[in-house]
């Protein structure tokens, strides 16, 4: 059991939780994740540790409500307990702080950049975070990322704030010249965290420019300790387990086609579960209304 100390609604479907987890907070490194379960009979899902505060015994996770478990989690409030939280799992990425490191975050992937960028900045790297979303109010944690990075660059599909276009277009501009982040120079290393399509596009962009790039892979996972092998992905010619060998891999070596296909293995069953959940929620709210 882990107590929720506070909750922030970042967008209608994105929630931030500060969780009491002293052992995890003490052991955590940037880029690691936890496995969470929210009810008896519930799934185990991996969630990136967005930030951690060992002195206060707290970790921060950001959840995007996309399925049954994330919706149940998103509905929890301050003071509630999360049934199971285990970690920290996976390994922190090995990123040299020499030169200019650019973090690219798409959607709620921006959250996972937070402690990674701060750690790199503290270790002496010049840092830029480029984060993107469809529109201004879907961009998350901009103040925190601004404080953690040398330069923060915002992108929106509709141009409601920052650069109008994709993060990869902005990344290309950064590679091409000094206008995006004046004085920081061209990127020496790139870390991409976000939807698979975005990470694949970032990999394509930096491959052309020959820039070392890591992608944070989030395949389906059960135990998170190397036991099930469900999270296996192909890196170059090798099969790796994202939970123990990753989650960060050389983005230029990742077989994104396979990773995308494997992540969709249960889509039909997931939607079946979501429909069932919607019915159950409807029934529950009727009961509540009846009681009032």
């Amino acid at each position, binding site marked *: 059991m882990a107590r929720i100390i506070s909750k922030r609604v970042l967008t209608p479907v994105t929630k931030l939780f500060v969780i009491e987890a002293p*052992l*995890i907070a003490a*052991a955590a490194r940037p880029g690691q994740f936890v496995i969470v*379960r929210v*009810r008896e*009979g*519930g*799934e*185990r899902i991996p969630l990136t540790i967005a930030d951690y505060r060992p002195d206060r015994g707290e970790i921060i996770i950001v959840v995007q409500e996309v399925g*049954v*478990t994330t919706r149940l989690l998103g509905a929890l409030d301050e003071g509630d307990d999360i*049934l*199971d*939280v*285990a*970690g*920290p*799992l996976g390994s922190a990425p090995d990123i040299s702080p020499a030169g200019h490191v650019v973090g690219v975050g798409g959607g709620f992937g921006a959250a996972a950049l937070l402690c990674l960028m701060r750690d790199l900045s503290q270790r002496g790297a010049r840092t830029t975070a480029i984060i993107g979303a469809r529109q201004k109010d879907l961009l998350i944690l901009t103040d925190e990322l601004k404080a953690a990075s040398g330069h923060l660059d915002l992108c929106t599909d509709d141009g409601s704030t920052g650069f109008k276009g994709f993060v990869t277009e902005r990344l290309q501009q950064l590679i091409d010249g000094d206008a995006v982040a004046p004085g920081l120079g061209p990127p020496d290393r790139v870390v991409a965290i976000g939807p698979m399509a975005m990470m694949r596009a970032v990999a394509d962009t930096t491959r052309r420019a020959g820039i070392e790039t890591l992608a944070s892979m989030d395949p389906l996972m*059960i*135990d998170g*300790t*190397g*036991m*099930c*092998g*469900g999270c*296996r*992905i*192909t890196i170059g010619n090798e*099969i790796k387990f994202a939970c*123990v060998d990753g989650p960060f891999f050389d983005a230029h070596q990742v077989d994104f086609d*396979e990773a995308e*296909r*494997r992540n969709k*293995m*249960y889509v039909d*069953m*997931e939607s*079946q*579960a979501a429909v*069932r959940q919607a019915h159950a929620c409807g029934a529950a709210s009727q009961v509540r209304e009846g009681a009032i």
Partner: protein
Amino acid sequence: MPLKRMDKTPMSERAAGRRAHDFLEVNEGYDMARAMFEAERCLRCQDPVCVDGCPVRIPIPEFIHAIAAGDMREAATILRGANPLPAICGRVCPQETQCEELCHMNNRFSSAAIGHLERFVADWERGQPANDATRQPWRDEKIAVIGSGPAGLVCAGQLADMGYPVTVYEALHAPGGVLRYGIPEFRLPNAVLDWEIDVLRQRGVEIANNIIVGKTIALDALLDDMGFAAVFVGTGAGLPKFLGIPGENLNGVFSANEFLTRINLMRAYDFPVSDTPMKVGKRVAVIGAGNTAMDTVRSALRLGAEKGLIVYRRSETEMTARIEEHHHAIEEGVEFHWLTNPIEVLGNVDGWVTGLKCQVMELGEADDSGRARPLPVAGSEFVIPVDNVVLSIGTTPNPLLLQSTAGLETDRWGCLVADEESGRTTRARIYAGGDVVTGAATVILAAGAGKNAAEAIDRDLSAARGDDQGRELQSGRH
């Protein structure tokens, strides 16, 4: 009363046609009359060789004798004194290659049904009123046990009996290790496992779930910062092997670990009441022929597969599954493809499995394992149409803890090096036993190793304490 039978008293089991579609237990156990009848078959040999076949040296004739005398409480006391997990071992031990193999009755008849009787006694005990009082430890030295599988649970139980405060750390959200995530309900119901674990808790064992030693807490922190006097490593062999053949990452290919974990730990058979899905097609091929393979293929049938196939590159003779599991699988309609070696998983344009390309094998000279080496027959390739392929070709120790702890020696198979008798590792105060030391083996061997290590830990702590009190208490216990 009829005369003694030449054959074992059969245990009633649910009809194959019915049981193959649900997860309820196959075997139904003895009743008192059958148990007493079977107990009378035991010859009460002067030299009970059956005990030599038991890794935890259960005084077999003694507990069987107690059943024959109708003294179930005495039978339970004898049994539990030697084996803290009798309800589990009575169900999953390969008795035919252990105690029952050595039984003198085998000379003319079939052996006494030691396993069935063990199960009967443990189930009787489970039906007795629960004792709610939790025993308090009386010693000062705290012991940490890493992993709550059979080795860890037995080690913890034995140490608690000696008065030590014991904390068991489990990485998953529920204790039991392979007993929980691996062995299915129809062979070992969770209720039985929960009961055995509750008994251990009452004996003073504490269990902390969701703690991955090596990640959440370093092993050295247990010794240096958290005040544990000794640590037992029973982390098992949880890392699945893959074949490395083309197509292994297609959708619909699983390790047996993933397949069984989804079903057993995550209750995928209850989806969508439970939240974890499991996708099983019409034809499921399981590669391998051990107990895990049998559990997997029979689980596939229970999840609605029309055909369950065992694909094995060796022959029936080299199969490692228990006779009973093989027999139950045949009854439930599993198809066996012996001397069949998978060489490629085939898929469709969407990346889903459609077939398994195999080649026919023939047996050659004995290999390192002492079994006949299977050799491919040239030009014998053929395709079995299947929707799922599950790899059940073995597991190796999970390197997560071993890699994060300095000074622990491992061998070339990644197994932790530990003394067989004492479980002592290459580091002081760290002991180990079970699959993490031997590679994937049986529940009872792990239990035996846990028991031996508990005794060694007590001996070493007593020596450090400079007294013999621990030894006296222990030897005077039974």
